């Protein structure tokens, strides 16, 4: 049995989907997290329920990509039951979609989510009465705490068994004049189409609203029908004369009237009015002058915590890795296999796995910011900056997702309506530092700037954002000229993040990181070791510089020599195109640190010690971090760019401009730093 989950953006669909199916889809307290359909199974009373999580949408009007996707899914591939997730803290707006679903006549169940927030604000909703008024079961849920899922599943099963809900019997009264035109169109449609998948009334209203696409989807034969082409404009003209404010406004007003009426009867306030606590907090957090410094302060604290709190567990893992290397090195007979396991595998994988605590702390912080609703405020604060580069605040959501991984961020640009906005956002997303680059920063900042590592990492992230804004501005006045569209940024109420969600975020992140260690990083480390151990002369391993990888590194080093990088760094940058963590694992292998558990006077593990001893200056280390921040995205991100832009030209441009920018910035840092006497 198929069950579709629909609802407004940020109403908690994905949280409910995860709760119902046991999946681990990304959840964030901001709109636009789900950009495509996702499916998951749940067994309930000997029935398999296939849940489909659809993108968030405010209506079924087909003005945006999400609206079109959801509407097409409902009319062309209708599931057995639709569950509309309604945000209890924003009933009026959410019920607008309910009205459209009622008109579509689908078997409907309402999950009144975040019911606890509605109660916390002093409201009581008569769910039973509301069910009767809208003709569909209304079940109170709190998805983040797993509350209400059993009754919801029971309602779904019951509705599926009945084959329909009573919603089809409920009618919104659009007023005498409009109803006359709707009836006339209905009558005409009845005589011209058979076996229509949608109610005639729904199609008639859609046609009056000017939705030609709906007709194309459900009754393509009527598109070129002469009679319809005369009838419809006549109706529309007559109504436009009667209602100069426009038909869309009129229809929306009537629907909101229906909602207001339903809420009047069912929603009661149980405690006296009080100022919303969210508004009170917002007075500070989105303040015109204080907002941005506070945002920067939160980010700074996050990176300080990432580095400082991560240092101790990182040291434990480092010790464990070194112990493993030394022990295995002692047990295995000396020879190439010993070298592969100790220097190749343990050196490579162990070099990256030590950063797991830092990654977890960073993502715990990001998860808290997201789930509390603060990230949506950050988007609101950034709206002005976005406008400055000719984008609107909606582009900020994919950009923020870029802090995690560029691939879903690039995919999330599908929520933007214009191709030009999508393209511009895709071009600047890779400049936002993804989490895979964090191990490189922690390694280099910790090695070369041990007392200011948190500050250095914070500044790198900010620099990435500034570069993205700068590049965006440049493109918007040259290659992609246009004005940004206005956008109302939604500010969800603040919510106390739950331990359950935060732990789940961290667990997902940890398992993903470890999975990557055991797959891509492991395989890349073996290959890098192999290329570093051959060609052999008289059965002996070559000097590092004479190995295949050494020769290759020296061949490309002229291009990067001006930046003060050695050939090991050059090679790492290239292998990092597979995945950015491979930059560190490659260094682990090339510096042969698997069995080296030495630490110098500065402390830290074997790789930092080897790096300090390799002649890299702090200035070059800074240039290297900037290069890693800005240069070409990884293979997965490049492919995502190609798929989303549908153009090799833009894909190559993205890779090319970023690499050129990375080189230019790194060179400028080295030159200016040298002139200022900060190092060679």
């Amino acid at each position: 049995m198929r069950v579709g989950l629909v609802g407004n953006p940020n109403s908690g669909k994905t949280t409910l989907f995860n709760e119902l199916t046991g999946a681990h889809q990304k959840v964030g307290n901001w709109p636009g997290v789900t950009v495509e359909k996702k499916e998951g199974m749940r067994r309930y009373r000997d029935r398999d329920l296939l849940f489909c999580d659809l993108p968030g949408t405010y209506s079924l009007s087909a003005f945006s990509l999400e609206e079109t996707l959801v509407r097409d899914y409902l009319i062309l591939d209708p599931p057995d039951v639709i569950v509309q997730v309604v945000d209890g803290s924003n009933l009026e707006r959410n019920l607008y979609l309910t009205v459209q679903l009622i008109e579509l006549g689908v078997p409907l169940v309402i999950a009144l989510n975040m019911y606890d927030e509605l109660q916390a604000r002093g409201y009581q909703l008569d769910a039973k009465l509301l069910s009767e008024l809208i003709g569909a079961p209304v079940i109170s849920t709190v998805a983040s705490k797993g509350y209400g899922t059993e009754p919801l599943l029971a309602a779904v099963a019951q509705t599926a068994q009945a084959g329909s809900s009573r919603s089809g019997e409920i009618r919104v009264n659009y007023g005498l004049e409009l109803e006359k035109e709707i009836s006339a169109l209905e009558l005409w449609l009845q005589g011209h189409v058979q076996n229509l998948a949608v109610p005639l009334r729904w199609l008639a209203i859609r046609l009056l609203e000017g939705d030609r696409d709906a007709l194309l989807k459900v009754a393509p034969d009527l598109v070129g029908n002469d009679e319809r082409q005369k009838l419809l404009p006549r109706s529309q003209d007559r109504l436009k004369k009667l209602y100069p404010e426009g038909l869309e406004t009129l229809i929306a007003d009537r629907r909101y009237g229906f909602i207001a009426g339903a809420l009047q009867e069912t929603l009661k306030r149980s405690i006296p009015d009080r100022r919303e606590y969210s508004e009170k907090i917002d007075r500070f957090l989105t303040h015109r002058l204080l907002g941005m410094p506070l945002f920067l302060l939160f980010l700074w604290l996050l990176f300080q915590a990432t580095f400082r709190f991560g240092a101790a567990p990182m040291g434990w893992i480092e010790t464990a890795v070194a112990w493993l290397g030394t022990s295995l090195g002692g047990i295995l007979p000396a020879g190439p296999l010993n070298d592969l396991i100790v220097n190749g595998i343990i050196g490579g994988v162990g070099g990256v796995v030590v950063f797991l605590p830092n990654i977890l702390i960073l993502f715990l912080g990001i998860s808290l910011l997201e789930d509390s609703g603060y990230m949506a405020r950050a988007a609101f604060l950034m709206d002005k900056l976005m406008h400055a580069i000719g984008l609107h605040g909606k582009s900020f959501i994919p950009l923020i997702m870029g802090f995690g991984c560029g691939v879903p961020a690039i995919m999330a640009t599908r929520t933007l309506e214009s191709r030009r906005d999508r393209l511009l956002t895709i071009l600047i997303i890779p400049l936002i530092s993804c989490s895979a680059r964090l191990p490189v920063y922690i390694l280099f900042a910790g090695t070369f700037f041990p007392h200011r590592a948190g500050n250095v990492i914070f500044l790198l992230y900010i620099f990435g954002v500034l570069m993205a804004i700068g590049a965006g501005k440049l493109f918007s006045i040259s290659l992609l000229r246009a004005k940004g569209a206005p956008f109302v940024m939604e500010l969800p109420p603040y919510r106390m993040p739950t331990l359950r969600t935060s732990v789940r975020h961290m667990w997902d992140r940890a398992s993903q990181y470890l999975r990557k260690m055991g797959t891509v990083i492991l395989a890349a480390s073996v290959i890098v070791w192999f290329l570093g151990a051959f060609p052999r002369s008289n059965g002996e391993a070559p000097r590092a510089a004479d190995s295949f990888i050494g020769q290759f590194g020296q061949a490309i080093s002229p291009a990067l020599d001006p930046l003060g990088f050695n050939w090991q760094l050059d090679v790492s940058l290239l292998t990092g195109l597979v995945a950015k963590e491979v930059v560190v694992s490659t260094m682990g292998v090339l510096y042969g640190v698997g069995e080296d558990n030495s630490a110098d006077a500065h402390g830290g593990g074997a790789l930092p010690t080897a790096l300090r001893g390799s002649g890299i200056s702090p200035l070059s280390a800074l240039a290297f971090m900037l290069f890693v921040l800005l240069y070409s995205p990884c293979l997965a991100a490049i492919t995502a760019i190609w798929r989303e832009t549908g153009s090799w030209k833009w894909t190559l441009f993205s890779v090319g401009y970023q690499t050129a920018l990375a080189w230019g910035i790194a060179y400028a840092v080295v030159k200016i730093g040298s002139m200022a006497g900060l190092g060679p």
Partner: protein
Amino acid sequence: MMLQWLIIGTAVLLAGIYLYRQMRKTLKAPFCSDCAGCDTKIKNRLNR
């Protein structure tokens, strides 16, 4: 020593094949590889 080289050869071959297949998979559908936004347990139906 022969056994050591045999194990190394197999490991390198397997690593090479894995990386090649992973790259090919990534080129086909970057979302289903190992990026942060995807869970392999979930069937992703792309918006065709």
